[in-house]
Protein backbone atom coordinates (compact mmCIF):
# COMPACT_ATOMS: atom_id res chain seq x y z
CA UNK A 1 0.00 0.00 0.00
CA UNK A 2 1.53 3.26 -1.10
CA UNK A 3 1.36 5.92 1.58
CA UNK A 4 3.63 8.63 0.25
CA UNK A 5 2.81 10.45 -2.95
CA UNK A 6 4.20 13.45 -4.83
CA UNK A 7 2.42 16.61 -3.69
CA UNK A 8 0.07 18.59 -5.92
CA UNK A 9 2.68 21.05 -7.04
CA UNK A 10 5.01 18.35 -8.28
CA UNK A 11 2.21 16.66 -10.21
CA UNK A 12 1.07 19.96 -11.67
CA UNK A 13 4.56 20.72 -12.90
CA UNK A 14 4.84 17.19 -14.23
CA UNK A 15 1.57 17.48 -16.12
CA UNK A 16 2.47 20.91 -17.43
CA UNK A 17 5.86 19.65 -18.54
CA UNK A 18 7.77 22.18 -16.46
CA UNK A 19 9.20 19.88 -13.82
CA UNK A 20 12.95 19.38 -14.13
CA UNK A 21 13.65 16.35 -16.30
CA UNK A 22 15.57 14.55 -13.58
CA UNK A 23 12.75 14.92 -11.08
CA UNK A 24 10.22 13.93 -13.71
CA UNK A 25 11.92 10.55 -13.89
CA UNK A 26 11.04 10.01 -10.23
CA UNK A 27 7.44 11.14 -10.66
CA UNK A 28 7.06 9.00 -13.77
CA UNK A 29 8.41 6.01 -11.84
CA UNK A 30 5.97 6.62 -9.02
CA UNK A 31 3.08 6.59 -11.50
CA UNK A 32 4.14 3.10 -12.51
CA UNK A 33 3.20 1.96 -9.01
CA UNK A 34 0.39 4.34 -8.23
CA UNK A 35 -2.94 4.26 -9.99
CA UNK A 36 -4.22 7.03 -7.78
CA UNK A 37 -1.60 9.49 -8.98
CA UNK A 38 -2.04 8.35 -12.60
CA UNK A 39 -5.59 9.54 -12.32
CA UNK A 40 -4.54 12.79 -10.70
CA UNK A 41 -2.17 13.44 -13.60
CA UNK A 42 -4.88 12.54 -16.09
CA UNK A 43 -7.15 15.17 -14.58
CA UNK A 44 -4.35 17.70 -14.67
CA UNK A 45 -3.81 16.89 -18.34
CA UNK A 46 -7.43 17.86 -18.88
CA UNK A 47 -6.55 21.25 -17.48
CA UNK A 48 -3.70 21.58 -19.94
CA UNK A 49 -5.99 20.49 -22.78
CA UNK A 50 -8.63 22.99 -21.71
CA UNK A 51 -6.08 25.78 -21.71
CA UNK A 52 -4.99 24.68 -25.17
CA UNK A 53 -8.50 24.92 -26.58
CA UNK A 54 -9.14 28.14 -24.71
CA UNK A 55 -6.04 30.00 -25.89
CA UNK A 56 -6.12 32.93 -28.26
CA UNK A 57 -5.17 31.37 -31.55
CA UNK A 58 -2.45 32.73 -33.79
CA UNK A 59 -2.81 32.11 -37.53
CA UNK A 60 -0.11 29.92 -39.02
CA UNK A 61 1.72 30.65 -42.28
CA UNK A 62 -0.24 29.83 -45.42
CA UNK A 63 2.26 27.26 -46.61
CA UNK A 64 2.55 25.40 -43.30
CA UNK A 65 -0.12 22.85 -44.14
CA UNK A 66 1.49 22.07 -47.52
CA UNK A 67 4.84 21.77 -45.85
CA UNK A 68 3.44 19.31 -43.30
CA UNK A 69 1.50 17.39 -45.95
CA UNK A 70 4.69 16.94 -47.95
CA UNK A 71 6.34 15.31 -44.96
CA UNK A 72 3.59 12.88 -44.12
CA UNK A 73 4.80 10.11 -46.38
CA UNK A 74 8.25 10.02 -44.95
CA UNK A 75 8.35 6.94 -42.76
CA UNK A 76 8.09 8.04 -39.16
CA UNK A 77 9.94 5.99 -36.62
CA UNK A 78 7.26 3.91 -34.92
CA UNK A 79 7.17 4.28 -31.20
CA UNK A 80 7.22 0.70 -30.15
CA UNK A 81 6.90 0.19 -26.44
CA UNK A 82 10.17 -1.38 -25.37
CA UNK A 83 9.56 -4.98 -24.42
CA UNK A 84 9.83 -4.72 -20.67
CA UNK A 85 12.54 -7.01 -19.44
CA UNK A 86 11.37 -6.48 -15.93
CA UNK A 87 7.70 -5.64 -15.54
CA UNK A 88 8.22 -4.72 -11.96
CA UNK A 89 10.49 -1.82 -12.77
CA UNK A 90 9.05 1.42 -14.09
CA UNK A 91 9.49 1.45 -17.84
CA UNK A 92 11.57 4.59 -17.80
CA UNK A 93 14.11 2.96 -15.46
CA UNK A 94 14.09 -0.13 -17.62
CA UNK A 95 14.79 1.96 -20.67
CA UNK A 96 17.65 3.83 -19.02
CA UNK A 97 19.20 0.56 -17.85
CA UNK A 98 18.80 -1.15 -21.21
CA UNK A 99 20.47 1.81 -22.93
CA UNK A 100 23.48 1.88 -20.68
CA UNK A 101 23.89 -1.85 -20.32
CA UNK A 102 22.88 -3.05 -16.89
CA UNK A 103 23.25 -1.30 -13.59
CA UNK A 104 26.91 -0.88 -12.69
CA UNK A 105 26.92 -1.10 -8.93
CA UNK A 106 29.63 0.81 -7.14
CA UNK A 107 30.59 -0.08 -3.62
CA UNK A 108 30.05 2.83 -1.26
CA UNK A 109 29.88 1.36 2.20
CA UNK A 110 29.53 -2.23 3.41
CA UNK A 111 25.78 -1.81 3.38
CA UNK A 112 25.25 0.52 0.46
CA UNK A 113 25.86 0.29 -3.29
CA UNK A 114 25.03 2.84 -5.88
CA UNK A 115 24.50 2.71 -9.65
CA UNK A 116 24.38 5.95 -11.56
CA UNK A 117 21.79 6.36 -14.26
CA UNK A 118 22.60 8.23 -17.46
CA UNK A 119 19.67 10.46 -18.20
CA UNK A 120 21.10 13.02 -20.58
CA UNK A 121 20.91 15.87 -18.09
CA UNK A 122 23.29 17.23 -15.48
CA UNK A 123 21.02 19.21 -13.23
CA UNK A 124 20.18 16.25 -11.02
CA UNK A 125 22.12 13.21 -9.98
CA UNK A 126 19.92 10.24 -10.73
CA UNK A 127 21.00 6.93 -9.24
CA UNK A 128 19.86 3.63 -7.84
CA UNK A 129 20.75 2.94 -4.24
CA UNK A 130 20.81 -0.58 -2.87
CA UNK A 131 20.83 -1.05 0.88
CA UNK A 132 21.68 -4.56 2.06
CA UNK A 133 19.07 -6.40 4.09
CA UNK A 134 19.25 -5.00 7.58
CA UNK A 135 21.87 -2.51 6.49
CA UNK A 136 21.80 1.15 7.30
CA UNK A 137 23.02 4.25 5.55
CA UNK A 138 25.20 6.64 7.46
CA UNK A 139 23.30 9.58 8.79
CA UNK A 140 23.43 12.32 6.24
CA UNK A 141 21.80 15.55 5.32
CA UNK A 142 21.25 17.20 2.00
CA UNK A 143 22.37 20.40 0.46
CA UNK A 144 19.61 20.14 -2.09
CA UNK A 145 16.24 18.48 -2.32
CA UNK A 146 16.38 14.71 -2.62
CA UNK A 147 13.60 12.58 -3.99
CA UNK A 148 13.63 8.92 -3.05
CA UNK A 149 11.35 6.35 -4.61
CA UNK A 150 11.29 2.81 -3.25
CA UNK A 151 11.55 0.43 -6.21
CA UNK A 152 11.97 -2.83 -4.36
CA UNK A 153 11.90 -3.93 -0.72
CA UNK A 154 11.41 -1.45 2.05
CA UNK A 155 13.34 0.77 4.40
CA UNK A 156 12.61 2.85 7.43
CA UNK A 157 13.94 5.94 9.11
CA UNK A 158 13.09 7.99 12.16
CA UNK A 159 9.77 8.96 10.62
CA UNK A 160 8.36 5.68 9.41
CA UNK A 161 8.58 2.73 7.08
CA UNK A 162 8.52 3.03 3.32
CA UNK A 163 7.44 0.42 0.84
CA UNK A 164 7.45 -0.10 -2.90
CA UNK A 165 6.19 2.94 -4.74
CA UNK A 166 6.51 5.29 -1.80
CA UNK A 167 7.73 8.70 -2.91
CA UNK A 168 9.69 10.83 -0.47
CA UNK A 169 11.00 14.33 -0.68
CA UNK A 170 13.71 15.45 1.72
CA UNK A 171 14.52 19.09 1.74
CA UNK A 172 17.97 20.49 2.13
CA UNK A 173 19.05 20.32 5.75
CA UNK A 174 16.80 17.44 6.73
CA UNK A 175 18.89 14.78 8.40
CA UNK A 176 17.95 11.15 8.22
CA UNK A 177 19.34 7.69 8.62
CA UNK A 178 17.69 5.08 6.40
CA UNK A 179 17.65 1.43 7.48
CA UNK A 180 16.71 -1.44 5.18
CA UNK A 181 14.31 -4.05 6.48
CA UNK A 182 15.90 -7.22 7.80
CA UNK A 183 14.65 -9.74 5.31
CA UNK A 184 15.49 -8.21 1.96
CA UNK A 185 17.66 -5.60 0.32
CA UNK A 186 16.04 -2.32 -0.58
CA UNK A 187 16.49 -0.65 -3.94
CA UNK A 188 15.60 3.00 -4.29
CA UNK A 189 15.71 5.54 -7.03
CA UNK A 190 17.34 8.71 -5.84
CA UNK A 191 17.24 12.10 -7.51
CA UNK A 192 19.36 14.74 -5.84
CA UNK A 193 19.79 18.35 -6.77
CA UNK A 194 23.14 18.95 -5.17
CA UNK A 195 25.82 16.90 -3.49
CA UNK A 196 24.98 15.30 -0.18
CA UNK A 197 27.27 15.40 2.80
CA UNK A 198 27.48 13.28 5.89
CA UNK A 199 27.05 14.74 9.32
CA UNK A 200 29.46 13.67 12.02
CA UNK A 201 33.27 13.84 11.82
CA UNK A 202 33.94 10.28 10.68
CA UNK A 203 31.04 10.09 8.37
CA UNK A 204 32.58 12.77 6.30
CA UNK A 205 35.26 10.27 5.32
CA UNK A 206 32.71 7.68 4.45
CA UNK A 207 30.46 9.99 2.58
CA UNK A 208 29.35 7.74 -0.20
CA UNK A 209 28.03 10.64 -2.13
CA UNK A 210 31.37 12.40 -2.25
CA UNK A 211 32.09 10.66 -5.46
CA UNK A 212 29.48 12.80 -7.16
CA UNK A 213 31.22 16.09 -6.62
CA UNK A 214 33.90 16.81 -4.06
CA UNK A 215 32.83 19.39 -1.53
Amino acid at each position, binding site marked *: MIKHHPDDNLLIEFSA*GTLAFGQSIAVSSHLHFCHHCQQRVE*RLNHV*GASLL*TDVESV*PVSDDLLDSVMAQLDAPTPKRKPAAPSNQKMPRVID*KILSKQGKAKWEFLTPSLDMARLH*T*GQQQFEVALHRIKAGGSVAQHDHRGTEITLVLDGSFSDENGIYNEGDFLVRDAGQVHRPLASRDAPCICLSVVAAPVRMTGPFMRLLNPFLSFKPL
Partner: protein
Amino acid sequence: MMAIKISQAHPLGASPDTRHTRRRSTVTEALQRDDTWSLALNRIAQDRCRKSFAAFFQHFSPLLKGFLMKGSRLNAAQAEELVQEVMIKVWGRAEQFDSTKSSATTWLYTIARNSRIDWLRRQSNAQTEELVADDLYEDESAETPFTQLQHARNEQTVVDALASLPDEQALVLKKVYMESKSHSEVSTELGLPLGTVKSRVRLALKKLQDVVGREACA
Protein backbone atom coordinates in the same frame (compact mmCIF):
# COMPACT_ATOMS: atom_id res chain seq x y z
CA MET B 1 -18.05 2.26 -34.20
CA MET B 2 -17.62 5.60 -32.54
CA ALA B 3 -21.22 6.44 -33.19
CA ILE B 4 -22.34 3.38 -31.28
CA LYS B 5 -20.11 4.25 -28.39
CA ILE B 6 -21.53 7.73 -28.27
CA SER B 7 -25.12 6.69 -28.37
CA GLN B 8 -24.50 4.22 -25.58
CA ALA B 9 -22.81 6.87 -23.59
CA HIS B 10 -25.47 9.40 -24.28
CA PRO B 11 -28.05 8.95 -21.55
CA LEU B 12 -26.88 12.37 -20.53
CA GLY B 13 -30.40 13.68 -20.89
CA ALA B 14 -31.53 11.00 -18.49
CA SER B 15 -28.73 11.59 -16.04
CA PRO B 16 -29.49 13.17 -12.70
CA ASP B 17 -27.76 16.28 -13.96
CA THR B 18 -30.94 18.28 -14.26
CA ARG B 19 -29.69 20.97 -11.93
CA HIS B 20 -27.79 22.74 -14.66
CA THR B 21 -29.71 23.08 -17.84
CA ARG B 22 -27.13 25.44 -19.25
CA ARG B 23 -24.33 23.12 -18.34
CA ARG B 24 -26.04 20.31 -20.14
CA SER B 25 -26.06 22.16 -23.41
CA THR B 26 -22.44 23.23 -23.17
CA VAL B 27 -21.46 19.69 -22.31
CA THR B 28 -23.35 18.38 -25.29
CA GLU B 29 -21.65 20.92 -27.50
CA ALA B 30 -18.28 19.98 -26.14
CA LEU B 31 -19.12 16.35 -26.68
CA GLN B 32 -20.01 16.94 -30.29
CA ARG B 33 -17.01 19.12 -30.84
CA ASP B 34 -14.61 16.67 -29.38
CA ASP B 35 -16.32 13.82 -31.11
CA THR B 36 -15.60 15.52 -34.44
CA TRP B 37 -11.89 15.41 -33.71
CA SER B 38 -11.94 11.89 -32.32
CA LEU B 39 -13.63 10.78 -35.51
CA ALA B 40 -11.10 12.69 -37.56
CA LEU B 41 -8.28 10.92 -35.74
CA ASN B 42 -9.92 7.56 -36.33
CA ARG B 43 -10.25 8.29 -40.03
CA ILE B 44 -6.64 9.40 -40.17
CA ALA B 45 -5.62 6.15 -38.51
CA GLN B 46 -7.82 3.78 -40.50
CA ASP B 47 -8.09 5.40 -43.92
CA ARG B 48 -5.01 7.59 -43.88
CA CYS B 49 -7.48 10.31 -44.75
CA ARG B 50 -5.67 13.50 -45.71
CA LYS B 51 -8.85 15.51 -45.79
CA SER B 52 -9.53 14.73 -42.16
CA PHE B 53 -5.95 15.52 -41.36
CA ALA B 54 -6.17 18.89 -43.11
CA ALA B 55 -9.30 19.73 -41.13
CA PHE B 56 -7.62 18.69 -37.89
CA PHE B 57 -4.58 20.75 -38.82
CA GLN B 58 -6.60 23.80 -39.70
CA HIS B 59 -8.51 23.70 -36.45
CA PHE B 60 -5.67 22.98 -34.05
CA SER B 61 -2.56 24.57 -35.60
CA PRO B 62 -3.49 28.17 -34.73
CA LEU B 63 -4.38 27.05 -31.19
CA LEU B 64 -1.11 25.19 -30.84
CA LYS B 65 0.81 28.14 -32.16
CA GLY B 66 -0.94 30.47 -29.74
CA PHE B 67 -0.35 28.02 -26.91
CA LEU B 68 3.35 27.70 -27.69
CA MET B 69 3.92 31.41 -28.18
CA LYS B 70 2.22 32.49 -25.02
CA GLY B 71 4.92 33.91 -22.84
CA SER B 72 8.27 34.51 -24.45
CA ARG B 73 9.69 31.05 -24.76
CA LEU B 74 9.12 30.59 -28.47
CA ASN B 75 8.92 33.10 -31.28
CA ALA B 76 6.54 32.66 -34.22
CA ALA B 77 9.01 30.75 -36.38
CA GLN B 78 9.98 28.41 -33.55
CA ALA B 79 6.34 27.84 -32.67
CA GLU B 80 5.57 26.89 -36.26
CA GLU B 81 8.53 24.57 -36.36
CA LEU B 82 7.08 22.83 -33.33
CA VAL B 83 3.53 22.86 -34.71
CA GLN B 84 4.86 21.00 -37.75
CA GLU B 85 6.59 18.48 -35.56
CA VAL B 86 3.45 17.92 -33.49
CA MET B 87 1.19 17.59 -36.52
CA ILE B 88 3.50 15.06 -38.17
CA LYS B 89 3.35 13.05 -34.97
CA VAL B 90 -0.44 13.27 -35.04
CA TRP B 91 -0.39 11.68 -38.49
CA GLY B 92 2.15 9.06 -37.49
CA ARG B 93 0.54 8.08 -34.20
CA ALA B 94 -3.14 8.44 -34.95
CA GLU B 95 -3.60 4.69 -34.63
CA GLN B 96 -2.46 4.87 -31.04
CA PHE B 97 -5.25 7.28 -30.22
CA ASP B 98 -7.93 5.50 -28.22
CA SER B 99 -11.06 7.50 -27.73
CA THR B 100 -12.05 5.42 -24.72
CA LYS B 101 -8.87 6.44 -22.94
CA SER B 102 -8.49 10.04 -23.90
CA SER B 103 -10.16 12.89 -25.68
CA ALA B 104 -8.68 14.21 -28.89
CA THR B 105 -7.62 17.45 -27.25
CA THR B 106 -6.00 15.82 -24.24
CA TRP B 107 -4.17 13.44 -26.55
CA LEU B 108 -2.96 16.38 -28.63
CA TYR B 109 -2.03 18.33 -25.52
CA THR B 110 0.25 15.54 -24.30
CA ILE B 111 1.97 15.29 -27.69
CA ALA B 112 2.49 19.05 -27.78
CA ARG B 113 3.73 19.14 -24.19
CA ASN B 114 6.24 16.36 -24.78
CA SER B 115 7.45 17.90 -28.02
CA ARG B 116 7.94 21.20 -26.25
CA ILE B 117 9.88 19.56 -23.43
CA ASP B 118 12.27 17.95 -25.89
CA TRP B 119 12.53 21.10 -27.95
CA LEU B 120 13.50 23.14 -24.90
CA ARG B 121 15.93 20.44 -23.84
CA ARG B 122 17.58 20.48 -27.26
CA GLN B 123 17.95 24.25 -26.96
CA SER B 124 19.80 23.78 -23.70
CA ASN B 125 22.01 21.10 -25.23
CA ALA B 126 20.61 18.23 -23.24
CA GLN B 127 21.36 14.84 -24.75
CA THR B 128 17.95 13.89 -26.02
CA GLU B 129 19.14 10.68 -27.60
CA GLU B 130 19.42 9.17 -24.13
CA LEU B 131 15.86 9.71 -23.14
CA VAL B 132 12.94 11.69 -24.53
CA ALA B 133 9.88 13.10 -22.85
CA ASP B 134 7.70 10.33 -24.28
CA ASP B 135 9.66 7.89 -22.15
CA LEU B 136 8.48 9.69 -19.02
CA TYR B 137 4.87 9.92 -19.99
CA GLU B 138 4.20 6.36 -21.03
CA ASP B 139 0.56 5.59 -20.99
CA GLU B 140 0.31 3.03 -18.26
CA SER B 141 -3.15 3.82 -17.06
CA ALA B 142 -6.24 2.53 -18.81
CA GLU B 143 -7.60 0.61 -15.88
CA THR B 144 -10.57 2.88 -15.76
CA PRO B 145 -11.33 3.99 -19.28
CA PHE B 146 -13.45 7.08 -19.42
CA THR B 147 -16.20 7.30 -21.94
CA GLN B 148 -16.09 9.88 -24.63
CA LEU B 149 -18.84 11.63 -22.78
CA GLN B 150 -16.94 11.84 -19.54
CA HIS B 151 -13.93 13.27 -21.33
CA ALA B 152 -15.88 15.99 -23.06
CA ARG B 153 -17.74 16.70 -19.87
CA ASN B 154 -14.57 16.96 -17.84
CA GLU B 155 -12.98 19.30 -20.30
CA GLN B 156 -15.94 21.56 -20.65
CA THR B 157 -16.36 21.82 -16.90
CA VAL B 158 -12.68 22.62 -16.58
CA VAL B 159 -13.06 25.38 -19.16
CA ASP B 160 -16.06 26.76 -17.25
CA ALA B 161 -14.26 26.51 -13.95
CA LEU B 162 -11.19 28.23 -15.38
CA ALA B 163 -13.31 31.19 -16.31
CA SER B 164 -14.58 31.42 -12.75
CA LEU B 165 -11.14 31.46 -11.11
CA PRO B 166 -9.91 34.65 -9.46
CA ASP B 167 -7.54 36.45 -11.86
CA GLU B 168 -4.52 35.98 -9.65
CA GLN B 169 -5.03 32.21 -9.63
CA ALA B 170 -5.78 31.96 -13.33
CA LEU B 171 -2.65 33.96 -14.10
CA VAL B 172 -0.20 31.69 -12.31
CA LEU B 173 -1.91 28.61 -13.68
CA LYS B 174 -1.61 29.83 -17.24
CA LYS B 175 2.00 30.75 -16.74
CA VAL B 176 2.77 27.26 -15.54
CA TYR B 177 0.89 25.41 -18.28
CA MET B 178 1.15 27.68 -21.26
CA GLU B 179 4.38 29.51 -20.76
CA SER B 180 6.11 26.39 -19.59
CA LYS B 181 7.44 28.06 -16.50
CA SER B 182 8.34 26.33 -13.31
CA HIS B 183 6.86 27.62 -10.10
CA SER B 184 10.11 29.29 -9.18
CA GLU B 185 10.36 31.06 -12.54
CA VAL B 186 6.83 32.36 -12.12
CA SER B 187 7.70 33.55 -8.66
CA THR B 188 10.72 35.50 -9.97
CA GLU B 189 8.76 36.97 -12.84
CA LEU B 190 5.83 38.13 -10.77
CA GLY B 191 7.92 39.12 -7.80
CA LEU B 192 5.92 36.83 -5.54
CA PRO B 193 7.26 34.50 -2.89
CA LEU B 194 7.54 30.93 -4.13
CA GLY B 195 5.11 29.79 -1.44
CA THR B 196 2.48 32.21 -2.70
CA VAL B 197 2.82 30.96 -6.27
CA LYS B 198 2.58 27.38 -5.12
CA SER B 199 -0.48 27.99 -3.02
CA ARG B 200 -2.24 29.93 -5.78
CA VAL B 201 -1.61 27.16 -8.26
CA ARG B 202 -2.77 24.62 -5.74
CA LEU B 203 -5.92 26.55 -4.91
CA ALA B 204 -6.73 27.00 -8.58
CA LEU B 205 -6.25 23.35 -9.31
CA LYS B 206 -8.19 22.30 -6.29
CA LYS B 207 -11.12 24.32 -7.47
CA LEU B 208 -10.87 22.82 -10.95
CA GLN B 209 -10.49 19.31 -9.66
CA ASP B 210 -13.40 19.66 -7.31
CA VAL B 211 -15.53 20.59 -10.26
CA VAL B 212 -14.19 17.78 -12.41
CA GLY B 213 -14.60 15.30 -9.59
CA ARG B 214 -18.15 16.38 -8.97
CA GLU B 215 -19.05 16.14 -12.62
CA ALA B 216 -17.43 12.76 -13.00
CA CYS B 217 -19.57 11.39 -10.20
CA ALA B 218 -22.75 13.15 -11.22
